[in-house]
């Protein structure tokens, strides 16, 4: 656990004051140089054996699933997917919504937590943003091929063509094209600009050669002068301010694909907030899924601490509960509105042939995170990993329930079909998982996986007035956390009472 007391060399009076103090973000009083060494070491050193164990299968799965599966699909026809008449969205759109949702946690961490001054984001934002980029890449594959003839996918963009046909700007599907492409582009800009100073760090450590040249190109000639930092910080703030409404809009627009249609089970106003909360929920689970192993693999425990994992677990608990509320509210409104078809749609989800998917969704998304109410569970990495995996699976089932069960029972009984995916469906989806992991492993291999400059900024001595604070008469007084005081100094008495007494005594003196 964290060393929670602050001590200075000239501890004159040795008064101990129990206070509630923030846990430090970087443990063991690491120096700037240690941080640089540890993060750049990941890129500069040989990769651990486990990296290859993970990378080779991931890359192979990606090759077979995405490249092979899609080649087969293009050469044969989109009919090789299991999409049937009426359930025409099937797995491809389930997978699209699943992947695009995962990206949202990255932007939440990099933008919203930046605007709300949550400094703990600095240790995880780089990897989470990388996750966003790769997840959106995986997501983009599905709608592009789902159009049927992928070589006609350019028709999605409003470009003058010889048929003089223009896209329908009233359609959420077109909004989606704009939302997702903007999201990808702005996320990429955010990720890249955030990385420039860190790429310069690697550049300055490289021996002359091809590596130095490449890192030199991508670090743009960064010098770290304050006249650069000044503009840079402003740019970062602006991008955060732009990305915050953007990320909320993207999954809202995705939910409009459903909500603006006149289909029972989809035509509800709760969809945008429900989708956004679900996206952040699923995204944080994926951040944990990839960060906990990466942390162990490269020994990043002092930078990605239990505090970070605790915070992420709490966000999963919060968003999971919001999602649970949305599920229940959907059911309640279906009942309370008296809309016959709405009610039938939800009864079909619960009691129809897809009941198992509905219970998977409910159990994995709503019940499994509730375990995070207990601190012990948030501190046990196996439990955290297990819940994160539950949420990953549960969120995929959520999209399956929304899309497949609804389309399988539309208005006309003649349209009613039971859907099952084809082998190519499964192959392509598994392929995107491989692609995501392979890209993330390459990211760990070649790019700084933690924001070096920002992590340094969170250290105490990074404050320009640090020395002035040390000159203050209060410095040198040993501060211990209140609950530790209770545990170690005053095991019998209640902490609250002890705190009050001590405060009084110091106030008198």
């Amino acid at each position: 656990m964290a060393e929670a007391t602050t001590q200075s060399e000239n501890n004159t009076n040795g008064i101990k004051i129990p206070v509630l103090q923030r846990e430090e973000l970087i443990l063991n009083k690491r120096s700037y140089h240690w941080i640089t060494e540890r993060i750049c070491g990941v890129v500069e050193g040989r990769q651990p054996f486990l990296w290859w164990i993970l990378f080779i299968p991931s890359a192979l799965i990606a090759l077979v699933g995405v490249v092979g599966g899609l080649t087969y699909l293009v050469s044969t026809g989109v009919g090789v997917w299991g999409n049937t008449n009426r359930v025409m969205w099937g797995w491809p759109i389930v997978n699209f919504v699943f992947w695009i949702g995962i990206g949202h946690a990255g932007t939440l961490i990099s933008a919203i937590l930046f605007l709300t001054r949550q400094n703990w984001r600095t240790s995880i934002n780089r990897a989470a943003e990388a996750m966003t980029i790769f997840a959106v890449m995986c997501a983009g594959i599905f709608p592009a091929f789902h159009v049927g003839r992928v070589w006609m996918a350019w028709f999605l963009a409003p470009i003058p063509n010889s048929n003089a046909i223009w896209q329908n700007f009233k359609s959420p599907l077109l909004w989606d094209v704009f939302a997702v492409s903007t999201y990808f582009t702005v996320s990429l800009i955010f990720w890249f600009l955030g990385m420039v100073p860190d790429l310069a760090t690697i550049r300055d450590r490289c021996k002359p050669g091809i590596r130095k040249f490449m890192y030199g190109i991508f670090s743009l000639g960064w010098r770290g002068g304050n006249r650069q930092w000044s503009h840079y910080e402003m740019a970062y703030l602006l991008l955060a301010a732009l990305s915050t409404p953007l990320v909320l809009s993207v999954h809202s627009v995705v939910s409009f694909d459903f909500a603006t249609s006149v289909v029972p089970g989809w035509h509800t106003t709760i969809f945008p907030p429900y989708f956004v909360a679900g996206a952040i929920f699923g995204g944080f689970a994926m951040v944990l899924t990839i960060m906990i192993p990466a942390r162990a693999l490269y020994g990043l425990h002092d930078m990605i601490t239990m505090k970070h994992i605790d915070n992420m677990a709490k966000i999963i608990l919060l968003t999971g509960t919001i999602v649970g509320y949305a599920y229940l509210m959907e059911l309640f409104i279906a009942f309370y509105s008296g809309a016959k078809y709405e009610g039938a749609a939800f009864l079909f989800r619960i009691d129809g042939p897809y009941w198992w998917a509905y219970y998977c969704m409910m159990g994995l998304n709503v019940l499994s995170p509730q375990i995070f109410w207990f601190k012990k569970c948030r501190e046990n990495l196996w439990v955290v990993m297990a819940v994160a995996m539950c949420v990953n699976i549960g969120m995929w089932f959520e999209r399956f329930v929304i899309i497949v069960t609804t389309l399988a029972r539309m208005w006309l009984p003649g349209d009613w079909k039971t859907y099952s995916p084809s082998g190519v469906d499964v192959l392509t989806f598994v392929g995107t998982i491989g692609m995501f992991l392979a890209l993330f492993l390459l990211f760990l291999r070649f790019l700084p996986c933690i924001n070096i400059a920002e992590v340094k900024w969170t250290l105490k001595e990074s404050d320009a007035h640090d020395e002035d604070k040390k000159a203050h008469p209060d410095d040198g007084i040993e501060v211990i956390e209140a609950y530790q005081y209770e545990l170690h100094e005053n095991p019998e008495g209640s902490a609250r009472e002890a705190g009050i007494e001590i405060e009084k005594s110091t106030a008198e003196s």
Partner: protein
Amino acid sequence: MSTKVRRVYGYLAEFKNASQLYKAAVKVRDAGFKKWDCYTPYPVHGLDDAMGVKRSVLPYFVFFGGLSGVLPAIALAYTTQVGLYPTVVQGKPANIFTTAAFFPVMFELTILFSGFTVLFGLLALMGLPRWNHPIFASKQFARVTDDKFFIAIEARDAKFSAESTKALLAEIGGDNIELVEDDSE
């Protein structure tokens, strides 16, 4: 090629930590220098005031960048939907009352163009990318992206003089003071 002219870029001095750098920056600013900079491994907050650096003008760029995104979005939506190719689908006619349905595209393009403006505006303001910079001639400067803090005063500053500037840097606590020479020409 045969004659190598070595041009003086300026003085570089190392400082112990952010606090020392901050105090030194105030003194360099008060000494009246204009062409100088503090180099740090991370953004030191408050250094802008200590150096007398004005707030970045980037937000103004981005405002107009955003405008340049929303205007084409409006033009694109109305010319195609009302003018060139009007369709009546989803119970929505193609006229001025359809505006609400165009909001998502307007919003997304505003963000997209603003994002590009941030990127290119920032690069323009920082004067990047560039292949090289005279200050990279200094060996010790490579540690600036790791854990060292520097102040560099350029020779082209009107107040620069070989002796007094060096003395000033020493007086305000600078270590490893180095005359950086540009040997690129």
